[in-house]
C-alpha cells in the first residue's frame, strides 16, 4: 500500500514501543496488540459502569448530607470514567454500542470485585480504601502504557481515583474511631472486602494468561503478584492507623524479602466469580440490562428527533 512491508512495520512498531514512545490511533499496530487492548480497555470501562451499582444504592441512604454529596460525585465520576474509556477503545476501531452489547450479552467481563454485595455503610468506606486502592496500584503503571489514548485516559482517572481512595479511607477512619457499633461495622467491612480486593490483581503469575506479552508490549509493567504485594505492603500500615485488623493470621513482615507475607486470596472463588458465579453477578447484569432496555424508547426518540432536525 505505502510500499513498506509487514515486517518493517512490525519492526518500527517494536522500536517505537521500546523507546517508550506512544502508539497513536493512526499508527500501524499488530492485530493482537489491538485486540488485546480493546479487550482490556473494554473490561476496564465495563467495570466503571457496573461499579456504579454497589455504591450507588447507598446514595439515598448516606447518613449525612456531606457524605451523600461525596458519594454522588464519586458515582458520577465513575460514569465519566466509563465514558473516557469507551472513547479510548473507540480509537481502536470498535464502537461503544458494540462493546455495551458485549457486556450485556455477557461476552465481555468486568472486575470480579463488583459482584460482591455492599451490606452496610462501612462498605462504602472499604470500597474506597481497598477497591479504589487496588485499582490505583493496578492503574498507575498504565499511565505509562504504550497506547497513547489509554495512557492519557488513565492519567485523568488515576487522579480522581486517588481522591476517592482518600475519601473512603477517611470515611472508614471516622467509623473506626466512632461508636462501638460504628467500629464493628468498619471491621466487618474490612473482613469481607479484604480477600476479594486481593483477588482484583488476578490469578497468580504462574496461571496468568495474558501477562507476558502485555509486559513485552509495555501495556502491563508489573506482574499480578508484584502488584498484589505492593498493595498489601501499602495497606498494612494504613490498617494500623485505622485501628482495624486485617483478617489474616499469617500476615507478618518478612525482613528477608523486605515485604509482608500474607495468605493469598481463594483463586478458585475468583475463578467462579469471574465466570459468573459470584453472589451478585446475576443482579448486576439484570440491572444493566433493565436500564438498557427501559431506555430503548428514549434513544429511539432522540434518534428520530435528530433525523427530523437534519432533514
Amino acid at each position: 500500500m505505502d510500499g513498506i512491508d509487514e515486517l518493517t512495520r512490525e519492526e518500527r512498531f517494536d522500536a517505537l514501543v521500546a523507546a517508550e514512545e506512544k502508539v497513536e490511533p493512526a499508527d500501524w499496530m499488530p492485530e493482537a496488540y489491538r485486540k488485546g487492548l480493546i479487550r482490556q480497555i473494554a473490561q476496564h470501562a465495563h467495570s466503571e459502569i457496573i461499579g456504579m451499582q454497589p455504591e450507588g444504592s447507598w446514595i439515598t441512604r448516606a447518613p449525612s448530607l456531606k457524605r451523600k454529596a461525596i458519594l454522588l460525585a464519586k458515582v458520577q465520576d465513575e460514569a465519566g470514567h466509563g465514558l473516557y474509556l469507551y472513547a479510548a477503545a473507540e480509537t481502536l476501531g470498535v464502537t461503544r454500542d458494540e462493546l455495551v452489547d458485549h457486556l450485556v450479552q455477557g461476552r465481555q467481563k468486568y472486575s470480579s470485585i463488583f459482584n460482591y454485595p455492599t451490606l452496610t455503610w462501612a462498605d462504602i468506606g472499604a470500597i474506597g480504601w481497598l477497591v479504589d486502592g487496588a485499582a490505583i496500584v493496578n492503574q498507575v503503571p498504565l499511565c505509562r502504557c504504550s497506547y497513547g489514548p489509554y495512557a492519557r485516559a488513565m492519567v485523568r482517572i488515576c487522579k480522581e481515583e486517588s481522591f476517592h481512595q482518600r475519601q473512603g479511607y477517611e470515611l472508614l477512619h471516622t467509623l473506626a474511631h466512632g461508636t462501638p457499633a460504628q467500629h464493628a461495622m468498619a471491621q466487618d467491612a474490612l473482613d469481607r472486602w479484604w480477600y476479594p480486593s486481593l483477588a482484583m490483581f488476578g490469578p497468580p503469575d504462574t496461571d496468568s494468561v495474558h501477562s507476558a506479552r502485555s509486559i513485552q508490549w509495555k501495556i502491563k509493567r508489573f506482574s499480578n503478584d508484584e502488584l498484589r504485594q505492593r498493595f498489601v505492603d501499602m495497606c498494612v500500615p494504613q490498617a494500623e492507623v485505622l485501628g482495624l485488623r486485617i483478617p489474616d493470621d499469617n500476615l507478618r513482615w518478612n525482613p528477608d524479602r523486605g515485604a509482608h507475607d500474607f495468605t493469598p486470596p481463594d483463586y478458585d472463588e475468583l475463578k467462579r466469580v469471574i465466570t459468573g458465579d459470584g453472589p451478585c453477578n446475576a443482579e448486576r447484569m439484570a440491572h444493566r440490562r433493565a436500564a438498557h432496555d427501559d431506555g430503548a424508547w428514549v434513544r429511539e426518540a432522540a434518534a428520530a428527533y435528530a433525523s427530523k432536525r437534519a432533514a
Partner: protein
Amino acid sequence: MSADLALYALGLGDDALIAAQRLGELYASSPEMEEDVALANIALDQLGAARLLLGYAAELTGAGDEDTLAFLRGPAEFRNHVLVELPNGDFAVTVAKLLFLAAWQRPLYARLAASGDERLAGIAATAGLETAYHLDHATQWTVRLGDGTPESHRRMQDAIDRLWPYTRELFVADPVARRLPGIAADPDRAEWTGTVEAALAEATLRVPGEAGVPAGLDGRAGRHTEHLTELLDEMQRLHRAHPGARW
C-alpha cells in the same frame, strides 16, 4: 423575623433536598450513559443548594445543623412542594418534574439574588446559575421526547398531564413569604407559564387545562403524600439508627 426567614429558607431547601434525593435513586439507570452524568450533576447542584439553605435555617434558629434538619424531622415538618416528592416514574416523568421545578426555581432564584437578606441573596445567586442549566437540559429532553416517536410523544404527554395538577401548588401564596417583604420573593406564575408553554409548543405537546392542587395536600404546610414518608424512611434510617454518632 429570623424564625420566618428560617422557615422560608427551609421551604426552598427542602424542595432542593427532596429533588436531589429522588434523582439520587437513578444512579446507573439512565437511557444513555451521558445522562447518568447529567442527572448526577443536577442532583449535586440541588443537594449543594439544599445544604446551604438548611445550614442557614439551622443558624437562624440557633439549633442543630444541616444534618439535624435533614435527618431528624418527620414528614409533617418538611416544607417541600409535593411535586418533588412524587416517584420518578419513567424517564418522561423525570424530565417533566425537572422542567416544572427548574422553570420555577430559575426566575425565583434570580429575584432572590436581589433579596434584602444578603446571605439568602448569595445562595440564590449561585443556585440560580445552576438552575439555568437544569432548565435548558429539561427543555431539550421535553422537545426531543415530545417531537420524537409516537411512543415518546405519548409518554411525554402523559407525564405532563399527570404532574400538571401538582404544579399549581408552586403558586399558592406562602404566608411565611408574605411576612418577609423585601426578603422573600413571589414566584411569577406568568413567567413560569410562558417558559413551560414555549417548551411544550416546541415539543408539539398539548398544554393541559387548568387544574387545582389535589385536595388535602399542602407541602409548605407539611401536608404530604405517603411517598414522602417512604422517601424519608429510606433517607433517614441509618442516621437515626446511631443517635449522636459522627459520620
